[in-house]
């Protein structure tokens, strides 16, 4: 029953504007915060870290093999070492090549420029730049097998990260809103 002491609203806008605001559930921010992506590192830092890690792999691994104390690295007969190491490296490289090709096929399916937003594009661009840096290193002639394995592993890891970023955004885009919005104020 309306209180007769209450003043009648002047118009419907007054009446509706007088409705009290509604409070969302108390844990709304916590739930949203859990869904927000982690703050990415600054672009330059990410790319240089990736390149530095790759260069370090090339620079340090041979040094380690040259300077390891006697016995630190088992020394089977040279022929056996060569065969075993070469076989292992070949097997690992084949597996890494296969995985790399599979991930590239997945990425080709995921890529859709219509759905890209600025932040996701920036992150994707950075990861692709990292992969391009690895590819440049892989193109160096006469790379040691162990170094090749390291670099291909880095490549696979980066492709997985890229698939995660582009897959997540595509899922949100498919389950969310169209990208354009009428500017109406």
């Amino acid at each position, binding site marked *: 029953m309306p209180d007769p002491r209450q003043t009648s609203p002047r118009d419907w*806008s007054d009446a*509706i504007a007088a409705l009290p605001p509604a409070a969302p559930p108390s844990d709304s921010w916590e739930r949203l915060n859990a869904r927000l992506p982690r703050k990415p590192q600054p672009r330059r830092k990410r790319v240089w870290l990736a390149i530095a890690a790759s260069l370090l792999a090339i620079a340090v691994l041979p040094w380690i093999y040259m300077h390891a104390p006697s016995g630190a690295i088992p020394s089977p007969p040279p022929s056996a070492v060569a065969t075993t190491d070469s076989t292992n490296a070949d097997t690992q490289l084949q597996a890494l090549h296969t995985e790399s090709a599979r991930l590239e096929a997945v990425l080709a399916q995921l890529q859709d420029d219509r759905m890209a937003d600025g932040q996701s594009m920036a992150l994707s661009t950075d990861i692709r730049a990292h992969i391009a840096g690895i590819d440049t290193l892989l193109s160096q002639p006469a790379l040691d097998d162990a170094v090749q394995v390291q670099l291909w592993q880095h490549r696979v890891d980066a492709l997985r990260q890229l698939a995660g970023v582009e897959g997540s955004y595509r899922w*949100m885009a498919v389950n969310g*809103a169209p990208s354009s919005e009428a500017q109406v104020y």
Partner: protein
Amino acid sequence: MPPSSRFAIDVPRNLIAQASNGEREAFEQIYRLFEKPVFTLALRICGSRDEADEVLQDTMLKLFQRMHEFRGDSPFWGWLRQIAVNEALMRLRRTRHLVEEIAVDEEHLPADSGPPPHAAADAALLQRALDALPATTRAVLWLYHGEGYTHEQIAALMQRTPSFSKSQLSRGTRRLRVLLQIEEPAHA
């Protein structure tokens, strides 16, 4: 005079810049400023706390993703409100509630220009009456009377004509009068 929006909150430029750079604390401050306006708008349009909660989450997630797109040539609150309205209406479309509207014939209906009944001063009564309206009609009423959108703007948002918006508004206020159990004023 158009109603003032609950969204009309000035946000400091540096806060917007910090949030655009991905600073979580700055974004949380923006979230805190607008969580009630967004939730309230979503609740009035969708009619359900659960759906309003999802609209709030989706709106703020989208805002976080697109903070860097804000150019500063219009009020931030208006830009954010637009995202919220689109999310709420899209949810209605997805759940097919947007087809629920008061059927109107093609005749021009006279505008309901009389003052609202005294019962409209009672927030609980008015809220109950609004909840009883079909979703589309309630959405038009809220966007027009609650947020100050014009019929042309409402038509663009709902992909209908301005005539449709006017008809729904007129029918909606008439229905509110009935629901509030007050007789309509006589037309001049």
